[in-house]
């Protein structure tokens, strides 16, 4: 059923009794042309673009829990393409472009909200580093504005400009950045993929990769063995575990990142703000909750939850830039499993196993990448060749040194 205002009126008048399921719940077939492991944003987008751009219909997405149960359903929803390095910029800008047309493409309102992303700077050196980044963006055709203190004050007057420990001096703003409704991305891609014949199989955990003579031929799952000509792995925080099934060790650690939602409030902040002298970023969801987060907890974890030190750190940062938050309350906090790569940038590449492809290393920034990741991963799987926008995301870059280290933090994932 096509979604539209008309459909809503029509169905309401019919008592809302005729809405169709957003996806089928098929039994797994014995074999597929392509299996995507992981029903997160990236896996679902990959399946959709495989079907739409490359004409593959015999595709399955295998998800161990419910669709969207991973990081796609638990992130702070920030999308932006304000990157520095040439390995990243074209890719994230392509993602931005896909976001801009996404809803009409998939006929689902994912609430792509280009409300702007403002990164605050607090020193001259940081201003110059932001200028470097803003200039890189502009050279790549990406929108960027370097704002002074007064311009920032006009945008977000409620921040602490008077008493801050690290006074706000200005900000780098990407007006086209913003937020996207996290769950809607998963559901929208899922529905769109399903409508193109992709089998979405929930509660189906991949427990083994079947490899014959150096080539992948299928997967073992909790719902039985399934054959496949090609397998694409897009399991974010579980990347190392799935790769281990093929005997691969990855330049990845899994860390927990927490996020927070406040009680719902009338509109308070209409852009995304990040603190430059600590780890903190905040926006307000359309439902009214402030959505915010900070640094990763900083240790390997598969526990899907974090601890108090980071919680307190996030709140201190919150109060440091916005002391008006003091009486507002945290409603819920949760954690996701981050696939932290050694240079902080993703991997979209072939593996040494024929027919086995890897999409991983998204760290805490892969939500914004969802459309481009799906697009480029689909391209790679379908054609066997990397998509030009993702050509730098190679697995061997750590061996060659062609790393993409935006922060210059080095090979220590808990610093990216």
């Amino acid at each position, binding site marked *: 059923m096509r979604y539209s205002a008309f459909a809503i009126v029509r169905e309401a008048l019919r008592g*809302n009794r005729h809405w169709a399921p957003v996806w089928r719940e098929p039994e797994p077939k014995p074999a597929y042309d392509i299996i995507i492991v992981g029903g997160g944003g990236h896996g679902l987008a990959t399946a959709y673009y495989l079907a739409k751009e490359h004409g593959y219909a015999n595709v399955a997405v295998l998800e161990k829990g419910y669709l969207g149960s991973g990081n796609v359903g638990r992130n702070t929803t920030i999308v932006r393409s304000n990157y520095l390095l040439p390995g990243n910029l074209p890719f994230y800008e392509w993602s931005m472009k896909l976001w801009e047309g996404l809803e009409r493409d998939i006929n689902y309102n994912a609430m792509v909200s280009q409300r702007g992303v403002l990164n605050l700077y607090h020193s001259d050196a940081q201003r110059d580093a932001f*200028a470097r980044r803003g200039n890189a963006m502009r050279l790549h055709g990406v929108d960027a504005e370097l704002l002074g203190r007064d311009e920032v004050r006009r945008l977000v007057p*409620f921040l602490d400009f008077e008493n801050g420990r690290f006074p706000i001096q200005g900000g780098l703003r990407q007006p086209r950045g913003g937020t996207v409704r996290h769950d809607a991305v998963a559901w929208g891609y899922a529905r769109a993929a399903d409508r193109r014949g992709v089998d979405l199989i929930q509660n189906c955990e991949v427990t083994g990769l079947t490899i014959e003579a150096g080539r992948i031929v299928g997967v073992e799952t909790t719902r039985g063995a399934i054959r496949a000509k090609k397998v694409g792995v897009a399991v974010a925080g579980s990347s190392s575990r799935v790769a281990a099934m093929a005997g691969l060790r990855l330049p990845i650690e899994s860390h927990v990142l927490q996020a927070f939602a406040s*009680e719902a409030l009338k509109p308070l902040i209409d852009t995304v703000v990040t603190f430059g002298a600590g780890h903190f970023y905040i926006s307000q969801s359309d439902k009214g909750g402030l959505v915010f987060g900070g640094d990763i907890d900083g240790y390997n974890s598969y526990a899907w939850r974090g601890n*108090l030190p980071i919680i307190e750190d996030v709140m201190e940062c919150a109060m440091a830039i916005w*002391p008006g938050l003091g*009486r507002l*309350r945290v409603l819920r906090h949760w954690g996701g499993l981050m696939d932290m790569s050694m240079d902080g940038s993703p991997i979209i590449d072939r593996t040494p196993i024929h027919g086995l492809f890897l999409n991983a290393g998204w760290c805490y920034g892969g939500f914004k990448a969802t459309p481009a990741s799906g697009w480029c991963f689909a391209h790679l799987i379908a054609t066997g060749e990397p998509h030009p926008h993702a050509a730098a995301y190679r697995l061997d870059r750590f061996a*060659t040194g062609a790393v993409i280290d935006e922060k210059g*933090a080095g090979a220590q994932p808990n610093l990216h």
Partner: protein
Amino acid sequence: MALGRPAAALRNGVTTTGLRPLAPTPMQTHRLASGGFVDRSRPLPFVFDGRAMTGLAGDTLASALLANGVRLVGRSFKYHRPRGILSAGSEEPNALVELRAGARREPNTRATGIELFDGLVAESQNRWPSLHFDMLAINAWFSPFIKAGFYYKTFMWPASLWENLYEPLIRRAAGLGRAAGEEDPDHYEKAFAFCDVLVVGSGPAGLAAALAAGRGGARVILCEEDFALGGRLLSERKEVDGVEGHVWAARAVAELQSMPEVRILPRSTVFGAYDHGTYGAVERVADHLSVPPGHLPRQRGWRIVAKRCVLASGAIERPMVFAGNDLPGVMLAGAVRSYLNRFAVAPGRRAVVYTSGDDGWRTLVDLARAGVEVAALVDTRPAVDESLIALARSHDVRTVLGAEVLRARGFQSLAAVEIGASDGRIERIACDLLAMSNGWNPALHLTAHLGGRPRWDDSLAAFVPGTVPSGMAVAGAAAGKLALAEALADGVRLGSEAAAACGFAGPAIPVAAETERTGSAPLWRAPKRGANKAFVDLQNDVTVADVALAHREGFRAVEHLKRYTTLGMATDQGKTSNLPGLAIMAALSGRTIPEVGATVFRPPYTPVAIGALAGHHRGKDFRPTRRSPVHAWAQARGAVFVEAGLWLRQQYFPRAGERDWLETVKREVATVRGGVGLCDVSTLGKIDIQGADAAEFLERVYVNGWKSLAIGRARYGLMLREDGFVLDDGTTSRLGEEHFVMTTTTASAAKVMQHLEFCRQVLWPELDVQMTPVTEQWAQLAVAGPRSREALRAVVDNAHDLSNEAFPYLAAGEVTVGGGVPARLFRISFSGELAYELAVPASFGEAAAEAIMAAGAPFGIAPYGTEALSAMRIEKGHVAGNELNGQTTARDLGLGGMMSTKKDFVGRLMAKRSALVDPDRPMLAGFRPVRLSDRLRAGAHFLPLGAPASAEHDEGHMTSAAFSPTLGSWIGLGLIRRGAERVGERVRALDPVRGGDVEVEICSPVFVDPAGERLRG
């Protein structure tokens, strides 16, 4: 009786304080004449929606409103339906208000948890223009069009209208209360606490547990979110040990207070369980006062570390789902008993009790005792125990068995209920209060915060704690032990077990309580009719029809159900709504409730103020400020300070008459280059390194050689990370055969120390190396300029020969100053001039600075700051933080030659990776504007002349720029592809974000004194 009737309501529909005359203070029309734990001698005036009223000490805002006959307190989230008070605790979904005013306004505050104080001001929220007449109530008419998830299906065309029209509209309609929008004027604190046994909840189970553990001598902390201790004992008329329950509780509290190792924290919610016995709690220290006194924080965030925890958090009563179940006047039966027994308030005049278990019948008795007319008791069960029937009869209450409430009727509050009997007859009973009870859910939230999954208990028809965090035990109603006697016994047992596990065995405590009936057969079904008005989640306006829609559309997984309908996502986190929602989904999909499963419980148990979690650390106290030992001296000299990490450094020293910082900096540079200047460099990291293997250690951590460094000499060193990129640089001096002092950059001092400790302890534990950070011990002053030797001569004791021969460039040694003060002198230069750094014990720093100033006065000495320092280091082509940005290699910085080929060192191999030795990498070069007046800016990108401004022509970027007073123009350092080979070439320095586009010439990075004659002079 005109409880919230339309006419009265409109008459009183005043919303803003002060604008209109206040309505006359109504009487506490619903206050009972006797009983309860309110202090009738302490009336407390308060204002709700501009109406002045009076409550009593011991009231909550909710009980005070009810006492005043107020029933309508808010509007619902989406449909703006009138909402009243459902509960008497922190599970409240409806009665949310904006508490206080001005900068202290707290939106979404549960009236049921607000302890009444003198002068309290609150307003209803999410309504316009007034609570009684709310324009957006029209949303309810559109409810078929705005069902769960409707927004995912529309608003897609045209794209730009989303941000410009739809989203702003949605955002304005959504949300609940309004934030103050001002800086929070109150203070917060954090605190740590440690105990053997943490008891959460002060109901009978919690008190018994605390007593048992406390009598054994254990260190106990008892946290209770309420301001009154006693839990349900304050709300129920039950006996313990032969006395009324509340009396027993008061005695227990008194005994606990007498125990030195027991700490009772009332008004303190344990909001989360974290790893290894750490619990988060928030104490509302001063929320019951109108303004916190200056010596107290408003709230305090606790991190409690407990060896054992007894969770005695009680149970939360479940509502029934039927059309109109959200009307003010529809209440949980247990809450009705709380209002009657604890607060001495009759929440209605004519009540119907609606129950699926024995518990409801207790309500009947309490209502009747309080003089509230009970029109009927409706039990969904076709048959109940004879004793219950007798009980009803004794109070002359009509009972209807095997029946259901089909619908609640009323305009802005309850006026009647429609009862459907088992034979299909429908009867309408007028009433203004419906007390409903559908069984209880253990408040097991904290058991699940670490990933534990609750378990379904068929006999209780509820989820009970499944796997619990290690060290935690669950007692009383929280464990499904609903009967008082059981709860008490459970508390005693688990309290003493917990204490015993910590080595404190106590005597057994027998506590007796009457037995009671707790039978229940919860009703999960919702009546067929009115699904659009039968609310599952009262706060987020999720109806039975929404759950059905989610089912129809495939959102059947419990987490999908939650996310699609927002069931359980409101400020109450579904404490009363989740289970009814699951039950309806289970019925729709032909599964059992445990098959549907529960959503994940997450902290906090109830919402926690951000301020309380931040504590003291805001404003200037966000992070410590580090001050150099000569800070006050510099301040007196007029320094302007700048943040450098945690440090405050002196940026420049303006003089009267100087127009701007640049003029000051020019003067400071000129002073150094022409005479002598003084700069505080105390913030650089300093590490004392000793031991037989100290030189070997340096060999391994630096790229260059150290064994050959003579005693009394300093050397510039460069450190890599193991991945081959530059970590840090600095000079290290050899003070003795086995003694070095290393300096690091200010920014990286801690990082480098940690790295060196890693190398020493983990990589090469066999080396004999001792390291001590000594940054804090020394004040270090750079004295630079052609006259620096002369200036220093007057400060350094005469015994030390400072001549160029005796103390040449890169000499280092221990000296004395000012007549015997031990000091260290280094002949090193960042500015490129003849220069020294003098280190004196920090407490002599200011004296030394003054002495140098005095000695340098004849040569025109002036203090200079980081700006001048930076300008001079750029003139000299010295790299600093902008170049050591973690992305550069030694080669990139023109320092590749320093990398020894004769030894292993950290980063050696990875620096050889092909991409790191690619000749096309950007390399350090100098830049000067072709048009001398052009300004250079760090952050500009380099492009070939004439090339279009696009990424494929990007060749690198300007890392540092400064005005060079020496050259009379701006100069820069930068990284540009094959930089070293391109000296003389011109390129564009493009800075679109600041509108800059300057033609620059690539030059050597050393602008001043390339031969280094000055610093050797």
